[in-house]
Structures are given as C-alpha cells and as structure tokens.
C-alpha cells in the first residue's frame, strides 16, 4: 500500500506509487498544507495520454489554482471520483483516500528519476 514512506516525489510536490505497471498519483502533505481549503479538483479525462511533466490536472483552493504535473508518462486509466463530491479529501488524506488519478505507465523506469521522501523533504527544507 502507498504511504509517504513508499512514494516517490516530484519537486513540484506530486507523488507517485507504482502498483505493478500502474502509478497512483497524488500531492504531498506539504503541498496540501500550502494550498489549504481545497474546493475543487479538475481531474483529467480517463483515456488521456500524458507525458512525464505534463500539466494534466488543476487543484483549486478558495484563493488559488495549482497545476498538477504527471510524474510519469502513460495513459490515465482511472481518476478518484470521490473527489468530485469531497475535494477536501485531498487535504485530509493526501497519501491515501485523496489520491488523484492512476497512470498506466509506458516506461516504468521513469519512476527511478523521481525523488525519495528524504530527497523530497530536503527540497522543502524539512
């Protein structure tokens, strides 16, 4: 199961966790704290093909909109429908129920380029 320890991160605060050939994607606890009060998540369409680093999702708080980048390349095969009714789930459970979408990876080796928790924490001064 994915948690903060087992996820890999982007400097832009997304996390990814490999489940076989799929990657589950979310945002870090630090990111949800910074964004705060998430009121809407504009999820990508299932079936969309994304490249690593591509902007594919928008998280809206009362005050601002944050673009979310795909940590790895592949096809979006699922989105977290629970966020449509309860976007604040991302605030409450950024590493569990508040995941955003799943990507069927076209190149699983891209996961190796992502940061581990210690390296990510260093980028946020933790």
């Amino acid at each position, binding site marked *: 199961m994915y948690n903060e320890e087992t996820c890999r991160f982007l400097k832009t605060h997304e996390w990814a966790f490999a489940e076989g050939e799929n990657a589950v994607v979310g945002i870090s606890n630090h990111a949800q704290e910074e964004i*705060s*009060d998430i*009121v*809407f998540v*504009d999820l990508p369409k299932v079936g969309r093909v994304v490249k690593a680093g591509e902007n594919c999702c*928008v998280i*809206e*708080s*009362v*005050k601002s*909109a944050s673009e979310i980048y795909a940590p790895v390349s592949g096809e979006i095969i699922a989105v977290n429908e629970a966020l*449509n009714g309860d976007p604040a789930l991302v605030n409450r459970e950024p590493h569990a129920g508040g995941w955003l979408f799943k990507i069927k990876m076209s190149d699983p080796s891209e996961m190796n380029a992502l940061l581990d928790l210690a390296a990510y924490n260093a980028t946020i001064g933790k």
Partner: protein
Amino acid sequence: MTHTLKKTALCSSCEQAGGKMVDFHGWLLPVQFDSIIAEHKAVRNAAGMFDVSHMGQIRVTGADAWKFLQHISCNIIKNTPAAGTYFHILTEQGTIIDDAIAFCINETDFLVVVNAACIDEDFAWLTKQAATFAVKVSNESDQWSMIALQGPTAVETADKILPGVLDLLRFHIKEISLFGAKGYVTRTGYTGEDGVEIMLPNAQIETLWSTLLKLGVKPCGLGARDVLRLEAGYLLNGADADQTKTPYEANCGWVVKLTKEEFIGKMALETKKAAGFATKLRAFKLKNPGVPREGCKVFYNGVETGTLTSGTFSPLFKGIAVGYASTEIPLGAEVEIEIHGRKVPAEVVKTPFYKNRV
C-alpha cells in the same frame, strides 16, 4: 523581496495568531489564519475580526467642509452629525478614482475613510480640488489603526468593551475613549454582516486585538474578506472599478445623484448615461463545479462578451464571479466561463449573491 513592505501596527499580532502574511498593495497583511472557509463561517455565523489598518483616513475640516465634499462626491453627503455616506470620488470624465465613506463628525469636521491603495492619489486629488474652498485636508492615515469586527454577534461583542455601541445606527460614527485613547467606532463593514469598525491610535490597537481574541472573536484574513465582500456584492476598487469605469457601469448607479446641482464628473455622467452603456458589471453563478477567477473570459452564445474582474469559491454558492459584459444579456441567461481551457456554464444573476441581514 525586492522592496520593503509596509507593516501595520497589528503585524506581529497577526503573525502570532498564525497569519499567513502576503504582499497586498505594498502592505504585509494576513491572507488567512487557519482556513479561509472556517474564517468565512465565523463571520457569517458568529464574529470575526480583520486588521484593516492599511485603510486610509483623510480629514476635511473648515467652514466649507460639507460644500467641498459635495463637490468631490457624486452622492449626497449627509451633514447631520454622526451620519456616514458611501460615495465615489470621480474624475472629470465621471470615472471612478475611489469609493469611500464620509462620516460627519460635525458640520465643519468630516472623516473620510478610503481604500489603502488609493490613499496617496485620493489625498492629492482632494488637496488639488480644495484650493478654492475654505477647508483643510489632512492625511491622518498613518496615525490610525483599524479593526473590522464583523458577524451576527459582532456588535454585542463590541458592546462589552464599548457600552452603548448596540444603539449606534447603521452607517453612523461615534467618538470613543478606549484603553486611554480617543478613537472612533462606525457601524460599517465589507462583509454583508452587521458589525463595527473601530479606529484607534496605533499604540492602542494591539490591546484591542488581544481583548477581542479573549472574547472569542476569530482572526480573519484577506482571503475570507474577499469571499465575504463578493457574496455581499461589494466592489473591489482596482479590480471591479477603476478610472475607465463610471459608477453606472460598475453597477452603482444608486450612488450617483444627478439631482445635485454640481459635482465633479456630473456633466460627463449625464452625457454618458444618455448615450447608454454597452457593458456593465454583471454577476455570474457557475452551474457546474469550478472556481472562476479574475481574467477568465465570458462567452454568450459562443461569442466572447467579457472578462471577469473578480471570482471565487463561495462556501454558500460555490463558483461566483463578476465581470464586465454586454448589457444586452438578460438576467437568468446562460453564459459560459472559460476556466483553464474548459468552458463552464453559468447563470447571469443579480447582486448581491448574499442578501445581508443588516
């Protein structure tokens, strides 16, 4: 940071209370404390307070004080002691320099409360216009700090430290003595709730803040303030109004009294009003989830008709916004607002979104 931000006398109090500080027109102010949604809820259901010390106070005194204010205001300025009047300061072209409130202390002494970002321009404009009047215009902005205490329980809370304030009429001012200093309390606000704004010298304002904290008042930031004022249908000068717009276009025709003999901008407004307006500040409520923001384009029947000047997520109404768009679009019509490349349907509605209880 490339420039030094101005700090209010409440800056460290706000930081101590957990305020997330941001640059607001050159001032370091809290955008939020713990949560914009929680702060919004406190003001709609109980009481919240805002540091509004950055706002300006311009005093107009002298034999011609009222006559002079009548000259620079499109609204009829009340000259009964304690009465306040909301008005717009206009250019000769009838466009909006600022919106402000003039409080009559007495017939020869008025206190004008103006927007922070406009203090210098307002003061220069008033000073220039004052040349032919027997008045003195003084910028007292640096001397005063101010807390806006807002919400259904705000006035009864204020009454605990300012006995009698419950009797203060809406839009009126009263001189006060508090913590050994002279100040003012006004029954005004920018949230659509009942409440007061308390002006004290800088040296006393921290005591007022800590006293209100102990009374259970929630500190609120600019983020909640923006949601509350947009729900209540109040203009944000600099966003929803500026020197390219007349009060009519800004949906504030009621502030213009063409029956007045004279005021700056009157002739231009008469001409422009007779010609009619192609666009006005219109209000929109999203039909689907999403958060409209300043700068989003508005489409009607597939054709671009305008741009949002303010938009937010309202905990009460979800996506709400205002922007300049064609006056020909009927109320209730469906438009589309483009948000991150996605067109979201919205209904054209009347303001205020939130019908206040005051």
